[in-house]
């Protein structure tokens, strides 16, 4: 109940943030620009529209999660609004989770808006509804959820600028960590491989949520792979949120 109250207040706060609409505008423009890019390209124009559209949704949504998420907890402490809030009968974990769900709700709405523009654009070119695109978008949303958790974790102990840098690094590392896995496969068994394996387990692999290529090119999507990605996202998000709660629980609000 209290988590819901905090979440709705966070949602109110986030949707009044101008940066959100700026990013939404750029995302919309970028999706629409894919049409022009398609005109300049030789080959399947619809594929280009789908590719660029999904990439735009993924990038601008992640930026929304990072730029808003990194300020959420810090702002409460910096602006001292936390004083009245935490003096109420509210567990600290409820506050962190409320902030998390509030931003997730905001991102869900933003994703819905971006998807609407994207799906409409695709529909205008193909004159048919392609539900598999929604599957790719759903996994982009799971990625946003994980990035939101990371942004909130960093926001629990550092300033918005530092948190944004950490979160951006999290996003970039997350999209390139698959190369570490490829490298590990080529390594002989030994301590280096074990160490590499441990590192790979710890750092995020956001490519687990990337089904854009499969969806755009009509490749098969095994259910096991989707289930693994879903489980991975859930567990990693829980891990990050637990860390955030542990850090936040120990904080003194000066």
């Amino acid at each position, binding site marked *: 109940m209290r988590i819901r109250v905090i979440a709705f207040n966070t949602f109110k706060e986030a949707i*009044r943030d101008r940066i959100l609409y700026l990013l939404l505008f750029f995302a919309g423009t970028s999706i629409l620009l894919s049409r022009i890019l398609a005109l300049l390209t030789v080959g399947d124009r619809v594929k280009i529209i789908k590719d660029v559209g999904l990439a735009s949704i993924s990038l601008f949504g992640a930026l929304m999660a990072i730029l808003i998420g990194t300020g959420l907890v810090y702002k409460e402490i910096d602006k001292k609004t936390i*004083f*009245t809030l935490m003096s*109420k009968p509210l567990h600290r974990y409820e506050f962190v989770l409320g902030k998390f769900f509030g931003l997730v709700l905001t991102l869900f709405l933003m994703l819905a808006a971006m998807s609407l523009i994207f799906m409409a654009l695709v529909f205008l070119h193909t004159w048919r509804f392609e539900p598999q695109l929604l599957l790719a978008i759903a996994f982009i949303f799971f990625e946003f959820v994980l990035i939101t958790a990371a942004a909130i974790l960093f926001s629990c102990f550092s300033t918005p600028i530092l948190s944004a840098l950490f979160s951006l690094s999290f996003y970039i590392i997350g999209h390139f960590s698959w190369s570490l896995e490829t490298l590990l496969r080529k390594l002989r068994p030994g301590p280096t491989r074990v160490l590499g394996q441990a590192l790979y387990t710890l750092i995020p692999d956001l490519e687990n949520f990337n089904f854009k290529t499969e969806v755009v090119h009509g490749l098969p999507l095994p259910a096991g792979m989707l289930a693994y990605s879903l489980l991975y996202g859930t567990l990693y998000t829980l891990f990050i949120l637990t860390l955030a709660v542990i850090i936040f629980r120990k904080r003194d*609000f000066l």
Partner: protein
Amino acid sequence: MATVLKVDNVRKSFSLGLIPKKKEILKGISFEVAQGEIFGYLGPNGAGKTTTLKCVLGLIYPDAGTIELWGMPHLALKAKARVGFLPENPYFYDYLTGEEFLDFYGQLFSLSRTDRRERVAGLLKLVDMTRAAGLQLRKYSRGMLQRIGLAQALINNPSFVALDEPMGGLDPLGRKEFRDIIVRLRDEGKTVLLSSHILQDIEMICTRVAIVLEGRVVSQGALRDLISQKILFTEVEVAGLPESELHSFGDCLSASSGRTLLKIHREDLVDGALSHILSRRGKVLSLIPRTQTLEDLFVDIVKKE
């Protein structure tokens, strides 16, 4: 009287700065607040008043010592549900209107929609903010924020209210209204912890006080026990007599437009002075015996420490 708040030997240090240096802010604070009283917690800036309050409200964790509310650990949600708090220089969500803001806090106490609507309207009326209910908090003045802050502290109809410098930023009329509200809260059976360095306010409404200095409670008890009732001196304002005729009774503090302010230090000289003034056809405009004030006590303690 039952004890509402018990603070026992609370210590707190902070490590601040680039090269962390430990600074002890609270050095073993102990005091108790009884049911139905207005307890004044006073001290100069930086004495540790706000840190104590933050410890009580669970905003910071003490290094040592215990804090109990109604015999329960102070962090218990059951205890916190009965507490109201107004922080110093309150900062609130400036994108909310006054009404939305109070409603938000009401929801944290799981109040029903009807209860919240009633409570919010009543509190807005109590703090005289009904006219600004639909205005975003970013458009509020400091005094208005203080008023809406008090309303949020009372949203749960608390049994114990902690107020940190509540009268800061208020004009004289606002201060009087706040004092009246605090007294009304006490009359309703609520317990109030009032942290302030405005001694006049504390003296006017508090029954018991604790004076904190450099992280220690240096004096505490009932105001009437702490402040001596002995007359320190008497101030007599006289008209129609030259200053030279009054010197033998005491110090002439000021003399203008035929009026002299005489400060008589010895009580036994007051009658003599009055007889002399009347016999010389002078006029006594006012006579004020001055007993010790909380300010005198406070200054004495600070100087001693």
